[in-house]
């Protein structure tokens, strides 16, 4: 092996060692507000064996790194991987994984959370929402930009539990944040309370679980407690421009010193950069140099 290749391999090894120290991350304890538990959640995450990048058990550990207390695995039109994720979460000690599905139809995308079985996408949104409710789940409009408005008739909006008001689409597409806001306000104007939701729609590797997140105020830190809080609208979400959605009293608490501690995702620690830089140089070096060639004799 030539000296440049040895140097590249050594850099990669140094990056791997630095990046593996302190991995996996430790679980963290949710904050309290009087009798309530304040958790950080993400109700729209995709896993591998769907179109997500990561195995469900890796998502559990990385969700922990992002400061999430709960998240839902919501692959398109299936719930099998989410059930594997919930099993992994129970063995790894959390965060709580809820079984979900992104019910993906041509005219609407709907998140079902707290499901037992897959809900068919071959039905109007109102019927899909009823099917979610029949299983004891909660129905959330996924990234409701203008292209999907027609799929949510007023009948569906009156039965909807929540709508994503923060979604990474708002960072990627001009006008998307305004469309999410208009959808939410229109649904609320029908006289039915809609819980504001922030979700990452994380597929990986770009973005992060919890990039958009929901703060929930629970009576009980369990799957049932989370679903109850979602139904009763005990959430606060910050849109991409920082606008807060939710009960003004809860928003005020999250602006207090105690609440601010819950709001920001944990910063990446110094080891991450130490690991990433030599790792990159090593990978780039090995890529450009390639494996040793066999020379003609």
């Amino acid at each position, binding site marked *: 092996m030539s000296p440049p290749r040895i140097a590249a391999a050594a850099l*990669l090894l140094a*990056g*791997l060692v*630095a*990046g*593996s120290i302190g*991995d*996996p991350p430790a679980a963290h304890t949710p904050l309290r507000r009087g009798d309530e538990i304040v958790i950080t959640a993400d109700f729209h995450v995709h896993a*591998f064996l*769907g*179109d997500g*990048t*990561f*195995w469900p*058990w*890796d998502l559990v*550990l*990385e969700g922990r*790194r992002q400061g999430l207390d709960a998240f839902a695995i919501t*692959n*398109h*039109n*299936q719930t099998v991987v989410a059930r594997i994720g919930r099993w992994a979460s129970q063995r790894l000690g959390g965060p709580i994984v809820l079984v979900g599905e992104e019910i*993906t*139809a*041509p*005219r609407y995308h709907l998140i079902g959370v707290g499901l037992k079985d897959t809900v068919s*996408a071959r039905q109007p949104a109102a019927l899909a929402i009823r099917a979610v409710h029949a299983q004891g789940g909660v129905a959330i409009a996924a990234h409701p930009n203008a*292209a999907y408005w027609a799929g949510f008739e007023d009948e569906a909006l009156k039965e909807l539990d929540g709508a994503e008001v923060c979604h*990474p689409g708002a*960072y*990627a*597409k001009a006008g998307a944040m305004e469309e999410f806001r208009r959808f939410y306000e229109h649904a609320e104007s029908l006289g039915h309370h809609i819980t504001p939701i922030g979700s990452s729609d994380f597929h*990986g*590797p*770009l*973005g*992060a*679980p919890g*990039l958009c997140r929901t703060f929930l105020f629970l009576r009980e830190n369990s799957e049932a407690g989370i679903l109850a809080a979602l139904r009763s609208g005990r959430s606060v979400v910050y849109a*991409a421009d920082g606008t807060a959605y939710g009960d003004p009293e809860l928003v005020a608490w999250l602006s207090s010193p105690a609440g601010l501690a819950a709001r920001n995702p944990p910063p*990446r620690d110094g*080891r*991450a950069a130490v*690991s*990433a830089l030599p*790792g*990159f140089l090593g*990978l*780039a070096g*090995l*890529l*450009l140099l*390639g*494996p040793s*060639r*066999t*020379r*003609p*004799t």
Partner: protein
Amino acid sequence: MLHPFTAYQELAREPDPGAWGLVRRPLFQACLLGAIASVGISGRLSLRLVLSTGAAWSFAPALQMASVLALRRALGGRHVSLPRSVDLYFMGQGPWCLWLLALTATQAFVPPERSVSLLAPQGPLLWTALLPLLWSPVLTFSFLRAAFQASRRRAAQGLLLHGAITWGFVLAFFQLSGQLAPRLAALLKE
């Protein structure tokens, strides 16, 4: 990468790399995918994530190996050993690997909300994918001409077969993950 036909002609004359040649570059590519994913989600190179995610996505290099097998059979390139064919083919994956590495660097050193916008359809990063997208077929064409000694016409046919396998797989992946049919239906309704 810049003079692929000449480079492939020289490389094809090298001795057979043996069984290790069959797997070394596909393995490196699987590990690279794992590393990219690891840095993307955690900002660090974690051995756990590199191995776990690399194993998950190892089907991608495995599928490319299968496409080399199909091309070798279709173009009559059996005078070149299978390990040598696979090794030479994966050398042509350099542009995509470098692009993915650059993508990961972006993710590691800019905030996630910014990296999401860079890869959006109107973002600058997605357009840079045109470079590997356009250059990779040139490399594959040169590989087929130099390694399998295919005529221009046969190499062009091979390139079409390769495209059909690759894009067929991408479409199958989106169909199996539940995305393709609803999106196609939505497009047809528009």
